[in-house]
């Protein structure tokens, strides 16, 4: 189900009422909300755009993962108990129940791998076979990707590993565990919640005060505005049009669409997270934050500390640290960093575009660490700068030739090398404060440009966009590209006809406003908005919410799935 839909309004009104009506009866309440969560998973809205939700019976996979993880947790706990009864030590270094861990991780990751990656892998193998002049080696396969599988799989695997490591107790109550994994606010697109954060909250007395209510509502409203106005509206009116056939648009139009997508994906996902956090708070559950103004990041590492934080921290705890983190020397640290960021990238999707995206992010992370200059003098920095420039020159030129198909890739290589050299010798933003905007600008643009591979439907489309950017055509922007026909018509037909020119440029205006809001201090706005919510009569707040949902109908043809549903 999509949060920004009338369906969800109906659904949540009933669930909220039932939930609080059963506040004194944990079992009934847990049953109620678990059943509601499964209904939420199965009864998705029909999105106006993009692929349909997976059929309802895919909820069986969620149930299967739940059962496997639950039993594995119990199995591991039993193994520990047996060890205890044998008088063996039970410290953090002692591990029991490897078989259960292996089983649960294999089942969860196996399902994820099958549904998410097998189509791509078989196609890649067959492409290799075709290059070798042979017929397909593997049968073509394209399983449907169950909504939310990446999210609930990571939660399940994290739980089993925590139990195995002795950091979390095994949950013995199947209902509580089922609720943890299927709790609808985080079910389909996160945040990725840890059992150690979630389960203890079920034990606390359930209460909701007015402040909590107002803050939650504010959070939901903020998420809706982000999602509907800055995310979906910009996408539907502008970004999707350009990315549908990038070749038909000029260089500037493609670049602006990339900026548009950069804002859209942030607002889409962080808006979704805001709504999820707000909805969960209305049910007395706190979720971790998922975003912290990522486009204010000063480097790639900072970016990943601010973007989809629950995924980054998950991979840090369950991949990076087990690989050895930074404890095994510089070479191994670079490898561990690269692998972890590669997984972050490839988690987002299966396809060559995502492989390239993952490689770019992972390599940038390694570059970022290499040029941190901890204890490196001026000449050392110059040396690292030259090494980096040389490497980036070669890689950019190869990238330009092989991927973008440029007839002369050396200019691209030169530009890449120059940027790498400057970045490598540039003092860090925490050392020289006035350089902070430059660091932010460079990081933002790395993010914008790498999004080409994130958004493009195919490698050919990505190539087309990059070619447009590299061989600038100077066509400018066509009339009407930033307008919204429906809004324009609506205004023309109303008493606000004088404002119809605004509709012709509304997307560009929103784009500028969205980025401006991202860089302006948030606290004053939020305080004012929260005060307004708090001091307004309840009915008026309700009218405000209804207007937000009305905007959904006016600005868009209907609800649109979140981008991260596809991951």
């Amino acid at each position: 189900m999509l949060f920004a839909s009338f369906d969800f309004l109906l659904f949540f009104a009933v669930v909220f009422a039932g939930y609080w009506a059963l506040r004194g009866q944990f079992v009934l309440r847990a049953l109620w909300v678990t059943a509601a969560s499964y209904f939420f998973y199965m009864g998705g809205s029909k999105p106006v755009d993009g692929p349909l939700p997976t059929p309802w019976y895919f909820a069986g996979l969620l149930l299967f993962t739940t059962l496997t993880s639950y039993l594995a947790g119990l199995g591991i706990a039993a193994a520990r108990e047996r060890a205890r009864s044998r008088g063996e030590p039970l410290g953090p270094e002692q591990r029991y129940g490897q078989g259960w861990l292996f089983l649960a991780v294999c089942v969860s990751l196996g399902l994820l791998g099958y549904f998410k990656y097998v189509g791509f892998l078989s196609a890649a193998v067959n492409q290799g076979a075709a290059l070798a002049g042979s017929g397909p080696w593997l049968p073509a396969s394209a399983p449907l990707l169950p909504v939310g599988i990446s999210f609930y799989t990571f939660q399940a695997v994290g739980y089993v590993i925590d139990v195995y490591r002795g950091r979390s107790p095994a949950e013995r109550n199947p209902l509580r565990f089922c609720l943890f994994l299927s709790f609808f606010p985080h079910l389909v697109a996160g945040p990725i919640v840890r059992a150690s954060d979630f389960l203890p909250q079920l034990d606390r007395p359930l209460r909701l005060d007015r402040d909590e209510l107002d803050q939650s509502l504010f959070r939901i409203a903020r998420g809706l505005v982000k999602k509907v106005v800055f995310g979906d509206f910009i996408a539907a009116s502008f970004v999707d049009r350009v990315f549908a056939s990038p070749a038909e648009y000029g260089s500037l139009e493609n670049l602006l669409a990339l900026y548009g997508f950069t804002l859209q994906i942030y607002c889409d996902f962080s808006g979704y997270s805001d709504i999820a956090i707000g909805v969960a708070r209305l049910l007395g559950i706190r979720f971790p934050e998922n975003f912290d103004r990522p486009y204010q990041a000063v480097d790639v590492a900072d970016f990943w500390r601010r973007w989809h934080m629950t995924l980054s921290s998950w991979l840090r705890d369950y991949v990076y640290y087990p690989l050895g983190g930074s404890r095994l020397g510089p070479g191994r640290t670079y490898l561990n960093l690269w692998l972890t960021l590669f997984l972050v990238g490839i988690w987002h999707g299966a396809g060559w575009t995502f492989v390239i995206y993952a490689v770019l992010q992972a390599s940038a992370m390694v570059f970022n660490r290499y040029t941190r200059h901890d204890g490196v003098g001026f000449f050392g920095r110059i040396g690292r700068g030259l090494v980096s420039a040389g490497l980036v020159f070669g890689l950019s030129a190869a990238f330009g030739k092989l991927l973008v198909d440029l007839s002369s890739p050396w200019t691209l290589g030169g530009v890449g090398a120059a940027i790498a050299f400057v970045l490598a010798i540039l003092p860090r933003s925490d050392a020289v404060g006035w350089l902070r905007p430059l660091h932010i600008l460079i990081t933002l643009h790395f993010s914008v440009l790498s999004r080409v591979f994130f958004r493009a439907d195919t490698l050919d489309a990505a190539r087309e966009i990059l070619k447009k950017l590299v061989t600038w055509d100077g066509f400018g922007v066509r009339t009407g590209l930033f307008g919204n026909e429906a809004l324009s018509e609506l205004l023309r037909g109303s008493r606000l006809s004088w404002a119809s020119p605004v509709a012709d440029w509304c997307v560009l205006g929103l784009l500028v406003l969205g980025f401006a809001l991202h860089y302006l201090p948030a606290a004053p706005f939020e305080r004012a908005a929260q005060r307004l919510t708090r001091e307004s009569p309840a009915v008026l707040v309700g009218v405000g919410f209804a207007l937000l949902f009305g905007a959904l109908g006016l600005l868009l043809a209907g609800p649109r799935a979140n981008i991260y549903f596809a991951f």
Partner: protein
Amino acid sequence: MTDSFAQTSAPVTELAAASQSAPPQAGSGALRRAFGIACGVLLSIGATYVVPGLGALRPWAPGSGYVPFWNVIGRELLGEGEALAAEAQKLKELQQKTELPAAASAKVRERSARPARPMFPAYTPEARIERPEQTIEFSEALEGYFTKLTQVDLGIDGAIARTGHWGDSVLGMDGITSGIRRRLQARFGDAGHGFHLIDRYHPSYRQQGIEFSAGGGWEGCLVIYECRAKQDRRYGYGGYVVSSDPWSVASAVYTTPKSGFGSTVSTFEVWFQRQPRGGKLELSIDRQEKVVIETRSEVIEDGSRMVYVQPGPHTFTLTAPAGGGPVRAYGVVLENDGPGVVWDGMALIGGSTRGLRTQDDEHIEDQVRRRGLDLIAFQFGGNDLARKYVDLKHSMQPYYDEYGEVIRKFRAGRPEASCLILSVIDHGERKTDDRIVTKSFVKPLVAAQREVARQNGCAFFDTFQAMGGEGTAARWYRSNPRMMAPDLGHPTGTGHEVLAGLIAHALLYDYDQFRSRMAGKPLPLPAEKAPEKPPIDLDALPDVPPAAVTAQGAAGEPATRAGSEP
């Protein structure tokens, strides 16, 4: 050393701590307030059904198609899922049916000598073409073109079947036209890419397979803007004329692919305008040989210059140097000696038949004659849909008149050429209840275009019906991969391929029928030397290095002579 990646978890742990330290406090007013908010939402929703002006904000209206919790109710209980699956399957089959195999390549055809008593031989195709769901109407109007295709099919020396295909943005990116070109060249042989403008006037103007770059310095004028209405009204064969800035260098570079469709070029022809103050154009081949083309003349007239090169892939660079007079040019043609097919794509973005009328009569007549077309095809209508509320509100007569005028103008240059009108494709629009429907004027416009074809002796292909008729835009938009762009009026790359496949299939089917019924009848042959081709001007040999001069042209003539119109 600190670990940059390790810092990621701070907000998570902080929040976990926060959640432990600040549990929700008791407050009896919270639920009452929540109830008040719910009442506010309900009242607002109710207001949209009571206050007429708020009707657009209704979350649900009868007949809107909205089904709550669609994935369970609509998809499973109401059976919409099955209908959508069937639709997706049908579109997938359509894509497969119209697909050109990735390994397809231009047919290599052996040339045959001219038969002494030319007759249509008995037709034994490698595989019969299945009858398409949508065939070409009035297909007898294509017999001239099919005759030329037969000559190509028989490998008769010098036989090239040329088509000029004009259209609006539906032909953008050379999507449909390149798709037809490749399909016909795979069947009959590749006689080259064909026509290309001197400059790209729009991002959507592109010729597939030709790597093109313009070095700037050109100022262009597209026929639909009528920017030369007060001058000579000469916009050229492709509808776009460029003038070089006399004070800066203007250039255009055309590189053919190393292999595959369009890779073999043996003639490169530049089309330009002679004029009293015209400057010089320099043409270099593979960045070595240089041919100088003089465009100065006492009177304004159209000219062209053909250069023969060794058959194969080449790079041609056209330059209008600074300091000379302005050069006005229409385009270039890349061909080989055939036998084969050439399909020129002329996408006039934003164009319509109304815009095409503004070409000077004699000029366009000369351009079409010069190109030696065997088939003249038009595919307009996308920009005429808004005329439902303007001049076509009450009668289609203005449309018949203007389209007929265009056809007559173009055919005057090649009366023997066949003519084909391809209807407007489906265009969708979103209704206020979220449904995507076919624009109401599409069907009347298709009917009007059929009538235009009938009145003017042209064949007609109902592209709208072939692609699926009513509601196609919605279905194509929903398909995966998407076949219609989000504006619901332009096909995507996949859509272009499907349309090209449908059109090529219909043409090939009718060609099959034509050949079957013509067996044993006399076959006209092309002239020994095509009369529309300029004679070779032996005195105008370019400054060509000897290496290139040594090659022999396919027709047995020296390969690197420059020809110019007298």
